[in-house]
């Protein structure tokens, strides 16, 4: 059989299906690039300020490793690429790996590939078209970023190198995904393998640059991308090495693809347990079903809390802040006198930022109730005495505890690591933990609002709950300064949490009010859920 048979057709199909996905990834990559240019231009407007910043950054190990390499230079183009922390590479890599899995293993899972392969379509056609589409999307994202950067007045050669590195990130992780799609037996595992590789290689790269152990960065695929160093070294030979690696990976993928049966993989499908004596009752079911989500969140929050603590070590060294900024911080984040310093405000802003991110977790958990209801799985469960109020209450209990767990983790890791990095243990540990825990009731209130929306109008629950998260963040104290409203607005629950880190007195009243409101909304939600029709 002609190895290319059907490739053209499948590629056209893949392009047609990408119409609603790929453009958004490209817009995100180019947009993030331009945002970084605007950020550098606003905060480091003159060469003098830029040089001061570069000096401050170079003095801090955690900060200078942020964007790859072990030092920064005072160059506008370099700083825009550096400051993105490699996120343009990450975004392109994720877009490419998802596209490759979507057009290979995911189609195989659903049986669509079987349908197509019964026609004149070679066994390589799906893989080839997936790689072509992912490579093209990466290339377009890189090329448009290069053009946008040149348009913003940055060095043309450096911009082209930057664009090429962005495309290379997509190619590299697209080809890793192509291999993973042959190894795994389902799309979920293929995605997990590739995303895990991406995450580990990003962490290795950061750890290598921050610790000075260069070999850590060299064993990481993400490290090779960062080693291109656009606007500084412009290492095109590194891009040649990357292209060679991609060629080898693609060859491996084709070899594996040729040797396996349709629907089969090289890794055995994991089997479950034959019995589950402990699986009784709604809370345990909820935990069994959603413990994976919690674990992913706990790892993510833990890693970012370490990172935030590391980056925060630059705060005591910051000397170039305008003199009135301290007053703005007091106005924006609250304080109980003048005993607080920049570190206190940094830690509190960090806790609030984490609070907004953690609020997404309970919202996802509530959305899973709707997914269970729609899929018909909840119907199977509700043929038993686990009827809907108990079923929902189990999920709410797991959600509430999980949310509290994530806040505890944030407080512990952020407080401990900051103390560790600044030689001040146990110093910030307990205060940061208390600050993090005092945010829990507000996050529970967001949970309750999402749950009430699910109970009342299941069909609109998803947009409503996302709107609640965005509303809380946009009107909050973190986003407020972006549009010059220091202190946020009183229309979101985190507004009422006292800044105990900066010495504001702890008062039980706002917490009790939030808890009472939460209980009321949950009760309303459960009553409504009890009364409406249940099912698809």
């Amino acid at each position, binding site marked *: 059989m002609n190895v290319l048979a059907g490739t053209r057709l499948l590629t056209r199909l893949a392009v047609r299906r990408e119409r609603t996905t790929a453009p958004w990834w490209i817009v995100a990559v180019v947009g993030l690039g331009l945002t970084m240019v605007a950020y550098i231009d606003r905060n480091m407007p003159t060469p003098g300020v830029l040089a001061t910043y570069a000096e401050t950054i170079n003095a801090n190990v955690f900060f200078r490793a942020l964007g790859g390499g072990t030092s920064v230079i005072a160059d506008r183009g370099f700083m825009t690429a550096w400051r993105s922390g490699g996120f343009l590479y990450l975004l392109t890599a994720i877009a490419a790996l998802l596209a490759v899995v979507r057009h290979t293993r995911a189609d195989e899972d659903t049986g669509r590939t079987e349908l197509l392969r019964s026609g004149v379509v070679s066994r390589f056609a799906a893989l080839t078209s997936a790689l072509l589409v992912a490579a093209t999307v990466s290339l377009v994202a890189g090329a448009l970023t290069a053009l946008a950067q040149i348009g913003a007045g940055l060095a043309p050669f450096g911009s082209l190198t930057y664009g090429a590195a962005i495309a290379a990130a997509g190619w590299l992780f697209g080809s890793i995904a192509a291999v993973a799609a042959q190894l795994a037996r389902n799309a979920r595992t293929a995605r997990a393998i590739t995303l895990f590789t991406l995450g580990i290689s990003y962490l290795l790269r950061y750890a290598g640059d921050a610790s000075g152990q260069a070999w850590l960065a060299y064993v990481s695929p993400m490290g090779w991308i960062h080693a291109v160093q656009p606007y500084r070294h412009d290492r095109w030979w590194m891009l040649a090495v990357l292209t060679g690696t991609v060629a080898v990976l693609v060859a491996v993928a084709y070899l594996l693809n040729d040797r396996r049966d349709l629907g089969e993989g090289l890794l055995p499908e994991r089997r*479950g347990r034959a*019995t589950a004596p402990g699986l*009784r009752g709604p809370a345990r079911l909820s935990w069994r079903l959603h413990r994976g989500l919690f674990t992913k969140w706990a790892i993510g929050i833990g890693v970012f809390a370490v990172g935030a603590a590391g980056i925060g070590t630059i705060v005591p060294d910051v000397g170039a802040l305008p003199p009135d900024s301290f007053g703005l911080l007091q106005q924006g984040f609250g304080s109980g006198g003048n005993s607080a310093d920049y570190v206190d405000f940094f830690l509190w802003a960090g806790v609030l930022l984490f609070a907004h991110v953690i609020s997404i977790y309970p919202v996802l958990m509530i959305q899973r109730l709707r997914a269970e209801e729609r899929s*018909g799985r909840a119907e199977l469960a509700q043929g038993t005495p686990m*009827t809907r109020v108990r079923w929902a209450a189990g999920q709410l209990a797991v959600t509430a505890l999980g949310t509290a767990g994530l806040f505890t983790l944030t407080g512990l890791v952020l407080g401990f690591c900051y103390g560790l990095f600044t030689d001040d243990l146990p110093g910030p540990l307990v205060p940061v933990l208390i600050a993090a825990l005092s945010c829990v009731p507000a996050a529970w209130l967001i949970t309750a609002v999402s749950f009430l929306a699910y109970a009342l109008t299941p069909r609109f629950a998803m947009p409503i709950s996302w709107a609640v998260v965005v509303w809380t963040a946009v009107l909050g104290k973190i986003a407020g300064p972006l549009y010059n409203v220091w202190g946020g607005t009183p229309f979101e629950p985190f507004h009422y949490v006292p800044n105990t880190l900066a010495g504001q007195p702890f008062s039980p009243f706002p917490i009790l009010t939030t808890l009472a409101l939460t209980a009321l909304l949950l009760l309303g939600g459960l009553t409504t859920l009890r*009364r409406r029709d249940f099912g698809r």
Partner: protein
Amino acid sequence: MTETISVRGLVKTFDATRALDGLNLSVKTGEVHGFLGPNGAGKSTTIRILLGLLHADAGTVQLLGGDPWRDATELHRRLAYVPGDVTLWPGLSGGEIIDLLLQVRGRVNTSRRDELIERFDLDPRTKGRAYSKGNRQKVALIAALASDAELLILDEPTSGLDPLMEIVFREVVREEQERNGRTVLLSSHILAEVEALCERVTIIRDGRTVDTGSLVEMRHLTRTSIRAELSRPADGLADLRGVHDLRIDGEIVHFDVEPGTLGATLRFLDSRGVRALTSSPPTLEELFLRHYATTCDSTPEAAR
């Protein structure tokens, strides 16, 4: 004999469509009751109301002496349910799901559970996402049959099973009914399955009950459809007792015959020089076309 399920004048409307329009259903304790109707007749909607998942708009519903909407939790301790389209949790194995469904109902009879897994030939360690439709159905069936619930509500339980597994299913249901006196509501659109298991049936169409009674009373359900090729004219066939719906198409005759007069009819065919003969049970579709066509055409819905 007491009634386990009693439904009178049930009405349920979804937006503009009237899914149930005055449905009646009566299931006696200890019987296997067939709930027959073509796709979209309202079988699953009725069952969801019986489970308290949907709220009835009008009519009375009694289940195990309680109100399915109000007393759902208590009633569900005493019943087990197999949905028509079984969806499983992708990350849980079949064994875990069976245990979950049994344990939320109460005590688990492990030997009974293992025996059924063996008889239905299910691999309990496979994850939910990897099961075929038939195996998903087996998971739900085993969980229901291994429970000690006094009422089993089965919504088209064999639609994904292969013929061998269908036989196992019939055996197990028969044993349950005979040995443990369980009541079974079996919804189906396959007449043969209902005939093999049920004493009484309720036939519904467009959300209404069109017929109900025991299979013995409903003789039209147990007729045999005959197609025969004769060498001599079939004069007099129409006058034979027990022959219905006769169509003569040249040398070929089509008709339905009641079980009691089958012998006499065959002798008649012999006397007319029968050259070819096929006999089969009538399908539900044929019944609806022939027997219930008039019943239904008189209703406004069926007139469209």
